[in-house]
């Protein structure tokens, strides 16, 4: 029968004064290879175009009623540049008064911006680079809104554990990011004591002398396993593996069952409203990277309104405390971890048109917050 009166907490909150301006920058690449539209041979467009500035705009418009009510005016500054100009662009944006920068950049871009701005009193939100190395770098002025690789991999391994699919064959592509993905999966699999029966590289050319490396039936033969994990971050070969393996086994990873922070087909927890608002605004289906940016902007605005002074280091402190109660339309309240600045969040495991399960998978518990069963936990985390 516990009953707490929370009013004293409310009294401490000081809202920004009338006429305050919050400037948020959104920096992305002109041609981000991760969202490449001509991956497929003959310019077959497999993924839809991703321009996450749309999602940043949606977040500002979603919160307009609230920001108006407290007299806060939000200005969004969106810049798309080539990878060579990323650092200069970020510095220019900060000089122009963008105290908050949402980065929709690959890991190397995030790293160079973070290195260049690490002594500035700004807040950087890494929205879309999943690399755990950016978390262990422990940049003092950065948080991460999109899931880490490890969060996504833990979602998979929890699911495999719950299904008792414990023997995994890993197929890995040639891109360096593919190795990173496969390693992250292997680390997570080790924690939940899954068995990696083999780890096989996949090559693209049909070289008859390398049939073991490019023929899918040979690649998936000669051994038994419950499930195939495909590490193919550039979408080169993964598409051709489901229904083509020697043994009839499910495929997960970059294709088949995919782990993501968001899925357009998620229909619980008010998710449909977010997806259809996005659809209406942009005329396209929302992608996981859009959600990462949407929640990044939403966390900045929500937190700025709740701190006594809108000073980026204070805002970061608020975000990584348990005081932030962020609504990401995933059914639970979200905030950022104090040790690595990572957004705690459920991960969706989905196929091309359905969400199969939401992790944390039922039955996985944690001593403080169930969401911390996904991603590097405090006890195992160390800065580089």
């Amino acid at each position, binding site marked *: *029968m516990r*009953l707490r009166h929370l009013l004293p*907490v409310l009294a401490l909150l000081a809202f920004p004064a009338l006429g305050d301006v919050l400037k948020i920058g959104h920096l992305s690449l002109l041609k981000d290879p991760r969202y490449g539209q001509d991956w497929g041979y003959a310019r077959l467009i497999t993924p839809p175009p991703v321009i996450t500035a749309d999602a940043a705009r949606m977040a500002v418009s979603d919160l307009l*009623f609230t920001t108006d009510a407290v007299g806060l005016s939000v200005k969004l500054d969106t810049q798309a540049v080539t990878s060579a100009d990323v650092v200069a662009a970020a510095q220019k944006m900060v000089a122009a008064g963008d105290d908050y920068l949402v980065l929709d950049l690959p890991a190397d871009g995030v790293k160079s911006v973070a290195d260049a701005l690490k002594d500035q009193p700004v807040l950087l939100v890494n929205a879309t680079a999943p690399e755990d190395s950016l978390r262990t770098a422990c940049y003092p002025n950065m948080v991460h809104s999109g899931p880490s690789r490890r969060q996504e991999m833990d979602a998979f391994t929890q699911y495999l554990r719950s299904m008792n699919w414990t023997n995994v064959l890993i197929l890995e592509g040639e891109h360096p990011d593919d190795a990173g993905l496969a390693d992250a999966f292997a680390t997570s699999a080790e924690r939940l004591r899954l068995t990696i029966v083999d780890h096989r590289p996949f090559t693209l050319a049909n070289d008859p002398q390398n049939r073991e490396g490019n023929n899918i039936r040979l690649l998936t033969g000669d051994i038994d396993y419950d499930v195939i994990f495909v590490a193919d971050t550039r979408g080169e070969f993964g598409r051709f593996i489901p229904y083509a393996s020697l043994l009839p086994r499910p495929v997960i990873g970059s294709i088949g069952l995919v782990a993501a922070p968001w899925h357009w087909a998620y229909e619980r927890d008010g998710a449909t*409203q977010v997806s259809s608002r996005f659809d209406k605004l942009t005329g396209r289906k929302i992608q996981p990277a859009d959600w990462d940016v949407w929640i990044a902007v939403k966390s900045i605005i929500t937190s700025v309104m709740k701190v006594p002074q809108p000073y980026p280091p204070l805002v970061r402190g608020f975000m990584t405390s348990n005081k932030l*109660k962020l609504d990401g339309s995933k059914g639970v309240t979200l905030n950022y971890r104090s040790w690595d600045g990572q957004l705690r969040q459920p991960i969706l495991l989905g196929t091309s048109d359905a969400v199969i399960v939401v992790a944390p998978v039922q039955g996985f518990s944690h001593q403080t917050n169930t969401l911390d069963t996904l991603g590097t936990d405090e006890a195992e985390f160390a800065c580089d």
Partner: protein
Amino acid sequence: MKRIFLAILLSLELTKAALAADTGLIFISLERGNQVVVLNPDLTVNTKIDTSRRPRDMHFNMDHTLLYVACGDDDTIDVIDVATLTDIDAIPTGPSPEMFQFNPDETQIFVSNEEDSVMEVIDIATKTVVDRVPTGAEPEGVINSVDGKYIFVTSEVADMVHVIDRSKAAVLKNIIVGTRPRRFVVTPDGSELWVSDELSSEIHVIDISTLTIKDALSFVPPGFRAEDVTPVGMTITKDGSKILITLGRANNLAIVDAKTREVLQYVLVGSRAWDVDLSRDEKTAYVTNGLSDDITIIDMESMTPIQSLSVGRTPHSIRVDD
């Protein structure tokens, strides 16, 4: 003079009683079943009424001859005839109607359009939209103040309660509450508005005379963490003494003393408890459980669950005709 007035009142009461059939039927909207399932008082299934798609909030008219059902995917409020248990009409609305209320003389419907960020005022007789009040994104709960001066609407995304001046059909004030505010109750004396904040696990109590927050409450059943508590549905007894609050993922109903704000009892129900309604004699409470697709029936005297009953896909709202 007084006596005449009393006589009129009495005859009004009699007319109402004559019209109300008091069937004891229990109506449950199935959000994903596109049906309203009707249970007999003995809890056997009477019938299943096909409705427009995604039926959610439901309200009887004053004499309980009609049941109105907001159908989110076909953008209508369907009308069910209680005597024949058939869907007899559909009133068009804006995109994705979710929750609604009648005005006191039942000539208008106030409905939140979840995907349009608007509260519409619909004239029932002509089925036309007479007013549209823009709200924050994902408006949900709609309720009248007792004196009819205000309509309150929550915006789930803007984390606020819009206070709408009914005579002007315009927002008078925005009150920032907790994260993802959902539904309301107004105390029968008209003094307090209770708001459930699903994601910050709070209940805010607003003083209607000053339109300011006077209390923020949190109810955490034993064995749960605060973040498991996602309060949504609420109802209040006619004397205003008890408020029933569903706690969502904490799978409990909290029965709360409205005056002292103390929990009288936590009642274990199904998975993600959603809506709650009371029988007219207030001896029984009914809770819909959105994730376990069932309802839980609670004896209010002992404040214990009596029975859970499977009803179909994603039960949203429950109303008792008695």
